[in-house]
């Protein structure tokens, strides 16, 4: 029997990425997809002669970057490949693992599930933005003291989710910390260390 097969079909991810200015976001919660406000659709400008490309201004860690991005480029890709901010990792690229978590307008979100063109005018905070000069954020210090990273690949995401929690709630309970970090997988299984670090940072700051 002969059969012909043409590679991959349309994946959920390429579908999402080709939506361009659409308005689907994935919040960092373990239950999955939620809708974000359609009014937040991007206001970037098209790049002349380059269909599917726009110029956007990204405000990352307090600095503004004017970048040309393809509509299908996720924020995670642009942070890593164009801005060189490789502290943000991509573990699954499909909104499941949380390694790419950054803080956007005060909220922890999966940057693999946010298109770069949606980011015009938003305040983005990445792991690189937590360190002020040589001074570590208390949460980073707590991650060192409590052995937060094993392989370290999820660590940036864990810290960013922890930071987003502490920005809203400076005295979380253990249950609140677990819930807040529950969208960040750690295959080394270092969950207790990560939660302990968040709680210790809260105590330190308080």
């Amino acid at each position, binding site marked *: *029997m*002969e*059969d*012909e*097969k*043409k*590679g*991959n079909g349309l994946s959920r991810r390429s579908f999402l*990425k080709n939506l361009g200015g659409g308005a689907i976001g994935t919040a960092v919660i*373990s239950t*999955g997809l939620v809708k974000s406000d359609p009014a937040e659709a991007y206001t970037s400008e098209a790049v002349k002669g380059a269909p599917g490309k726009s110029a956007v201004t990204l405000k990352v860690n307090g600095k503004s970057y004017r970048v040309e991005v393809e509509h*299908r480029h996720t924020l995670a890709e642009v942070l*890593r*490949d164009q801005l060189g*901010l*490789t*502290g*943000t*990792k*991509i*573990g*699954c*690229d*499909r909104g*499941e*693992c949380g*390694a790419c978590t950054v803080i956007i307008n005060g909220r922890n979100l999966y940057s693999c599930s946010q298109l770069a063109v949606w980011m015009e005018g938003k305040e983005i905070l*990445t*792991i*690189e933005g937590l360190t002020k000069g040589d001074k*570590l954020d208390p949460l*980073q210090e707590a*991650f*060192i003291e409590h*052995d*937060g*990273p*094993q*392989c*370290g*690949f*999820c*660590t*940036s995401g864990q*810290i960013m989710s922890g930071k987003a929690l502490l920005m809203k709630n400076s005295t979380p309970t253990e249950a609140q910390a*677990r*819930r807040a970090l*529950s*969208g*960040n*997988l*750690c*295959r*080394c*299984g*270092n*969950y*207790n*260390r*990560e939660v302990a670090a968040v709680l210790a940072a809260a105590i330190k700051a308080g």
Partner: protein
Amino acid sequence: MAQSEKEFSVVGKRIPRIDAYERVTGQAQYTGDIQLPGMLYARVLRSPYPHAKIVGIDTSKAEKLPGVKAVIHHGNAKIPWSSGGHTHPRFIFNNPVRFVGDAVAAVAATDRHIAEEALGLIDVKYEKIPHVLDPNEALKPDAPKISTDGNLSVGKGNFSAPIEESWGDLEQGFKEADRVFEDTYITKHTNNAQLERRVSVAKWDAGKLTVFASTQGVSNARTDIAQDFGLPLSKVRVVSKYMGGGFGNKNQAQDYDYMAAVLAKITSQPVKLEFTREDDYIGMHGRWASEQKYKIGVKKDGTITAVQLDAVTNIGAYRKQSGNLSGTDFYQIPNFRKVIKPVHTNTVVGANYRAPAYPQSVFGFASFLDQIAHELGVNPVDMFMRNRIQKYKSKTPFTSNYLEECIIEGSKRIGWNEKWHKPGVMGGVRKHGIGMALGGYPFRPGLGAAAIRVNSDGTAHLLVGVTDIGTGAKSTMAIIAAEALGIPLSQIQVTNGDTDVTPYSVGESGSRTTSFTGPAVIAAAEDVRKQIFAVAAPQLKVKAEELDLRDGQVFVKSEPSQKIPLARAVARAGELIGRATTNPPFKDVEGKSFSAHFAEVEVDSWTGHVKITRYVAAHDSGIILNRMPAESQIMGGVVQGIGMAFTEELITDKLTATPINPNYRDAKVPTHLEAPNVEVIFIEHYDPYGPFGGKVVGEPPITAAVATIANAIFNATGKRIKELPITPDKILQAPQV
């Protein structure tokens, strides 16, 4: 033993990892973070069929897509991948393809999206071949043949045969038994699922290949690549500085490293090949599934007289590991026979995943022992204590064995005597249960190498080939060096994981880093200490043999107040270099780390949901060199075991032969919400064969976790779940015994 009584200055403390700063600031550069000028991106096309001959590949449309630079497949890139298929030749692209996910082609393009688009433009003509998914079916004479020698994999030398092992007199053992029990336990394929997807960056400079690999072992990756590409070792450099987890499936060099290298060669540009998450689940390997049939003979008091294990394991389409089962290792079995049949099927490869041959059969064997204890009316803790291993295969002594103390201390901590009750007698909706099991992992010293450069200011630079896959190996090596040299840890810099710079290392698999490379670090330190004493002796006006070095001070042993700082002693020495290649003798003994795990659970008898309320892990890993990461590894191993126990299973659809849940969401791994607080107890005794008395740590914690949880569920419900994963529906439907 003199050394065991020595007071350590650095070993055994709670010291943060020496590279923790890099890991918490995002500065640690992992393979995927590497960007090189002119670098291309590559993606892999995989077979949609479980078994098919490729009769045509048309890449013209893909090649015409702007940005595509090269397309490779079995027709134009016939490169052997020797670590991908032991004994039977395997290539980076195979024809026929043998499972859904077998690599068919790879594309390099200027952008990863273009490469991905190009995959869809490759026209492949397949001729389907009959396939087989079930290992028992695969053993039938008329089953489709996956390997040239048949579907039973190689067990002895190069012959297709089961793995067999026996000692004592099985028949006599069963005769001596008061009762004989038989039952079958089943485990499924689970994925390593490390957070870092496979990625490789390759480049060629004047005939020399550099691979930035996400590998657990740079030395064996280099050897593999050199062998398969026909290059001298001097023309291959493998670098892995930070690695985002592997748990056994990033050992050595893998097909993606080779594909990146071939694409880089063709295009004369650096190439980064990235796996997608789905590629990662199906393209490499996970833990082999198993069906374990046990026959166990026991005395009335629970003492084992004989064990027979007949098992079939599913190693998938290619043989990358043995397919063995070793969960009986922790018990004293006077008469024993096992026959394991590792079988090829047209499914994803089953190979190394943390303690490869253990958690499956620890689940089977320790569950069955717990069941037998129940039927005999013996308390499980007495059953496990009575049958714990004392001598390897009933004859060879262990280098050290404190399994008994693990059981005593662990059961005390969890409060076994107060909390244990008869299985299935609890009233109410949420039923309390308590369970235990034994585990561990083999330990032995082996070939290692290290170099230490002592700078003229007294600081030191340790060079080791180890990669740090999350175990803290880099820190452990620095701790060993600081202890052995006699200088503070802060004075040591480590360069690791670069074959052009660092000495040979066995590779971070089999929990071997500390026991293989550790002794070499100690020997290199001793070597450079001699050199230090030689230059310091005239300054202190004594003989070199009279000197010692501690806390960065060179002093006269008989008169410690006569001392000079190391920095002064070596100030005019330029640079002193200590080096060593070691392979300590290991004869007529066996090494093992041991563990006893204990769990308390609450089972909701309406929903079948299980909550782990307490977990105690007692481990004999010898002296703990680096306390904090060691504890973290124990906790993490338990969490991985929880995933294997409850949710993880790569499900292959019977109709399409396709894995239908190759991702975190559908083959769910534990999250923060499922991780219990694991209480770690280290039973610390000096092992004479381990560096500074330490045995293995990384692998043991996952071995007993699954069985421990299963036994706690039995205690809560009186229901014995004999097939993983233990899902709520199985708990609700299982009969109460």
